[in-house]
């Protein structure tokens, strides 16, 4: 079993493009593969396939409810809250919970000596599992609009299915949503573009993956636009260049309409097939 995250520091470099085309190529080879869209803030992978919904689970978290009849306004829960989610004003008999700030740690519940705190569930989003071609699973984590953190939703999405090869379409950036996705992965494919912004964000991603002692390689997308600095960097750092996907207006047009470029262009199809073969070999090892 191998779990592969498709990630990038910079947004819009082609993570979903790589995830969906690689998944399709593995599906065609009859591999036992699943695709999980971990970008719960803006999930898009499902739009590229004919799918039917198999199951849906709600993701919730607990938030405190303060019973004002029992509360003595001692302020202990406020002191114990590391997230400034509780305001207690004794002189004005105010005990207020700011639910969107709450991280569901349970500290206030433990702190209260008067039994004034109970907990209720609030909705964070949902995780939906879809059937693709009747034999594979595509999982999507979708954050409810207005919720601050996508991490609980993407964690649920990651554990929602299992397959011989699991592909995780990672959220952009280098902070907690990205870390939780790559932490659950055995191997990371970083997608970048040959521009100064792409390179800067690639360096940040590489720095973290090295700290985490993760195996990874790089795909340069939109090759031909921009400059050669990224190749010099990869060579100096001895980082494996897994593939180079040329920039082509036609690819952008196919992708923009929800099409899989590997289904319509032979050159691209061969590139993803070669990647799929590599991955199938890893999986055997």
């Amino acid at each position: 079993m191998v779990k592969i995250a498709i990630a990038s520091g910079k947004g819009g470099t082609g993570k979903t493009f790589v995830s969906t085309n690689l998944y399709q190529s593995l599906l065609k080879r009859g591999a036992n593969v699943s695709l999980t869209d971990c970008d719960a803030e803006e999930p898009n992978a499902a739009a590229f396939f004919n799918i039917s919904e198999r199951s849906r689970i709600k993701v919730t978290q607990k938030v405190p409810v303060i019973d004002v009849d029992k509360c003595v306004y001692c302020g202990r829960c406020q002191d114990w809250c590391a997230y400034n989610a509780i305001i207690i004003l004794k002189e004005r008999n105010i005990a207020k919970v700011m639910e969107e700030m709450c991280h569901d740690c349970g500290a206030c519940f433990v702190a209260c000596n008067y039994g004034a705190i109970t907990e209720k569930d609030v909705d964070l989003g949902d995780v939906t599992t879809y059937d693709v071609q009747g034999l594979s699973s595509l999982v999507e984590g979708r954050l409810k609009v207005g919720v601050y953190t996508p991490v609980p939703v993407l964690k649920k999405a990651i554990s929602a299915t299992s397959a011989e090869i699991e592909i995780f379409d990672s959220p952009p950036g280098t902070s907690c949503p990205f870390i939780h996705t790559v932490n659950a992965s055995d191997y990371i494919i970083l997608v970048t573009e040959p521009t100064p912004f792409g390179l800067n964000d690639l360096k940040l991603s590489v720095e973290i993956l090295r700290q985490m002692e993760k195996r990874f390689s790089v795909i340069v997308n939109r090759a031909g636009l921009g400059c050669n600095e990224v190749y010099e960097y990869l060579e100096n750092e001895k980082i494996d260049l897994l593939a180079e996907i040329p920039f082509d207006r036609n690819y952008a047009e196919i992708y923009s309409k929800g099409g899989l470029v590997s289904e319509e262009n032979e050159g691209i199809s061969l590139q993803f097939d070669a990647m799929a073969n590599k991955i199938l070999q890893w999986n055997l090892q």
Partner: protein
Amino acid sequence: MELAVISGKGGTGKSSITSAFATMNRQVVLADCDVDAANLHIIMNPDIEETQVYIAGEKAVIDQDKCTGCRLCEEYCRFDAISSINGICIVDEISCDGCKLCARLCPSKAIEMVPNDKSRMHSGSFRNGKMVYGRLEPGEENSGKLVAMVRSKAREISEREGLETILIDAPPGIGCALISSISGVSDLLIVTEPSISAKSDLNRTLQLLENYSSKKYVVINKYDLSPDLTTEVEELCKIYDVSVIGKIPFDRVVVDAMVNRKSIIEFNPDSVVSIELEKIWKTIKSYK
């Protein structure tokens, strides 16, 4: 004016557009709020005048000499961050949320909270004014709080230097970092692209913004890559009653400008992209 340039989807051109606006004006305060992956400083090359430490929460550390292996911490931790092997309790740094509950409950006081102090905020001058940007240590949480710190610094500089225009380059997504980047701004410019992904992301962004009273406008970047999707995006904007104030064609010159560490306005002021951006900026300035 405090204008935030946002987009649900990443890579739609927020930073390129923000850098163009910054260099059209003589004096602005520029705030790069994409603290996960800040990029504007690459173009603006600011002289850093001040660097401040940002504490991104804390992490629990267990003193193995004091730990008795009672596992009370493991029982109470809701982040599954503590596990014990052969009576030794270990904290998984990635899962630890810094809530401090374990440290408070430990009967042998074996747990200490250590601040995450590797993140930084830089401020200084660039060729068209002042600039503030954050650098969140990779993997740290609370990026929303660092964004708030960057914005508060930008406002302080704006008042001190009498610079009325604050330009915010926002992070992608709709989570805490974005919400923190846009609260209370006067103007919101949403940059989108003609693709089903960008359209779906725009829909979620516009849903989020429904209760915001800031002035809102949409720009469709690379609109000529798919005329059909451009029409669909325009229809979506009509539903939310947000005006599309500009359409920018795809042009390699935008990437060439970036490679040369210049904004498109500096690199090629006569390009179609530059002319369209000038028009968009005028529209924003005159919008009531």
